């Protein structure tokens, strides 16, 4: 009985049922498979989150993004610059209460080094409807290399709770052919 002491005091000498052994082996092998599959995906897969990260002060990051936006701005929408960086150029996205800044225009099939950091609280970069979700911290600048594979307008929502304006925090990436 599970609620009384095992009757056989030497329970560790009991034989184990065959079905138990069988399942332990299957489950263990499946665990191993899943473990090695994560490693394998770093070699065979096209979607791995880069871990390239630098420490940076919010003020310094804000400055970098402003310089970037000024340099490649092509137009403006509701007071926010629309920025079209040349292919291969580093791209900066700034998270703050409560927007993803600036708006971006990228080319389909081209790779960009995208920098992400926050200048206040934590935010959640959530690119939709692609469904790529990355945490963004203040004080840490993360760089991911992103290659859009489809054209169109893609929204960025915030999915890390960041205060009362959390549900108003958005941004946009437009991908052109």
């Amino acid at each position, binding site marked *: 009985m*599970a*609620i009384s002491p095992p009757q056989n005091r030497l*329970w560790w000498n009991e034989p184990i049922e065959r079905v138990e052994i069988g399942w332990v082996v299957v489950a263990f092998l499946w665990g191993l498979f*899943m473990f090695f599959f994560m490693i394998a995906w770093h070699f065979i897969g096209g979607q791995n989150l880069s*871990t390239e990260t630098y420490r940076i002060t919010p003020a310094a990051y804000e400055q970098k993004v402003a310089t970037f936006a000024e340099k490649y701005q092509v137009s403006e929408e509701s007071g926010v610059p629309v920025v079209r960086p040349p292919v291969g150029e580093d791209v900066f996205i700034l998270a703050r209460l409560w927007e993803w800044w600036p708006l971006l225009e990228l080319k389909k099939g081209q*790779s960009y080094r995208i920098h992400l950091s926050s200048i206040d609280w934590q935010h959640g970069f959530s690119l939709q409807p692609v469904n790529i*979700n990355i*945490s963004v911290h203040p004080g840490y600048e993360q760089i991911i290399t992103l290659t859009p594979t489809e054209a169109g307008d893609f929204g960025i929502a915030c999915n890390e709770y960041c205060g009362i304006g959390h549900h108003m925090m958005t941004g946009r990436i437009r991908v052109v052919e």
Partner: protein
Amino acid sequence: MTAIDVSHSGLAAARAAFRTCRFTGLKVDIAAQRLIMANAVAAVVFLAVGGLMGLLVALTRWPAVHLLPSEWFYLVLTGHGANVLLFWIIFFEIAILYFASAVLLGSRIATPKIAWAAFVLMVAGAIMTNVAVFQGDSSVMFTSYPPMQASPHFYLGLIIFAVGALIGVGIFFATLVVAHGERTYEGSIPLVTFGALTAAIIAVFTLASGAIILVPTWLWSLGLVAEIDPLMYKVVWWGMGHSSQQINVAAHVSVWYAIGALTIGAKPLSEKVSRTAFLLYILFLQLASAHHLLADPGMSATWKIVNTSYLMYLAVLGSLIHGLTVPGALEAAQRRNGYTKGAFEWLRKAPWGNPAFSGMFLSLVMFGFIGGISGVVLGTEQLNLLMHNTIYVPGHFHGTVVAGTTLAFMAMTYYVLPLIFQRDVIWPKLARWQPYLFGMGAGGISLFMMGAGTLGVPRRHWDITLTDAMHPFDLPSGGFLMMGLNGLAAVIAAAGGILYILITVGTVLWGKRLDKGEAPLTFPLHKQAATVAEYGSHATVKLPGTIILVSVFFLSFVLYYFVNWKYLSEIWLLR
């Protein structure tokens, strides 16, 4: 409320009063009984408060209803997480620890006065945090990620609560020592106590991590510490937050075994395998903090892979083993009870009208199929990108901690009431339906939130129409549909939850007293519930039903796992 049938003490050192349970023959320490009652009552109160908040949250996230204004939504969501995940679950777990030590071992509880002090601390802490939340300037979610800051007493309440809980865990260890020293039992501790021991050991690690991170955060909120690094906070906080989920798993798996024994006389197939499975939890779950940092900067891929998989999925292996040994033990017992036809007579003829059994079985199935599978997928390094911080995450953990843990604890309540409170369960017809109602609702909210998250709906989000946003865009309409269905399921879950509260409170106040007279239980125990029997499955080693169930589970797992890789392979390239 308590009758003292037998009043003696094993040793002069122990002046404890005992009674003998006329249903199980267990010797029950009256002091332990009172402590179990107090902790169970507190648990139910916080479930009532927190559950109501859950309903309000779900109704707000139902696009067609959108009940609360935004400030209230975030406030209530913070309160919901704290009250149910921390206060309800941990109070109930303390009750389980006292039960699994003092009652199952027939021992006196160690230092009841200190146990009461622990209880008072926990209540005081929980109230303090609730006050902070309701004052309105601590809507930081129960995770309270810096640099967002709550009032100092929000953190202080949590710290006091954790200290109380830690003392409670200490009482459990001390009681094991007392029982061992006073030889109140023979041989090894029962499997259920062993499972509780696992939970307690994990709890020490967990509560320590909690203190390490919450104390400096509290000082920071007082202005005494200049800065809390947001990444470091997350690593240590989740050392508490995730590991504490393994306490829940160890506790509810113990409850599954206990209910199996009480309702159909189930025994572990082999003690060795079941105990080793518990041991795997202790050895490997400390690593799981990584589950919450897979999409964060600053950690190497190696660190993520090793930690998120608990070193090659060895803690998951523990759960997978229980996934076979629990239904296997049930099947073996039912076959011994005479239900031997075909692969599934044992299951068809199980006591489905007994809410303890039905609740336990639903908890077992939903924890495995919904909470377990989604947890492994979500915790896979690359797949996490697809769902991180979407409402898939709450979907996953309502599968573990609501459909799994909460439902198991509810099921256990149907025996805590008669055996500890000594009151017969009232409204048996309604009680019979309660686990189905709550289970359906809990399974529903889990699945629909997972569905919505797969479509990109963010978590902790007041307005997915994004109408007030600076750059509005449309989330997929399927996501809105899922959130509507989630609202419906939430209403069903809430109905089941309210029914549970009414039955529990009603029974405690007005249930027929069982300490006087010979009245039988409305939901009877198996005749062998506590008598010692041959361990193991005897001759009933053929468990075709369990093998089929486990195969279906395994196939679903593999299929769902690869579907997600397929989905991942189709998104933008990322390196």
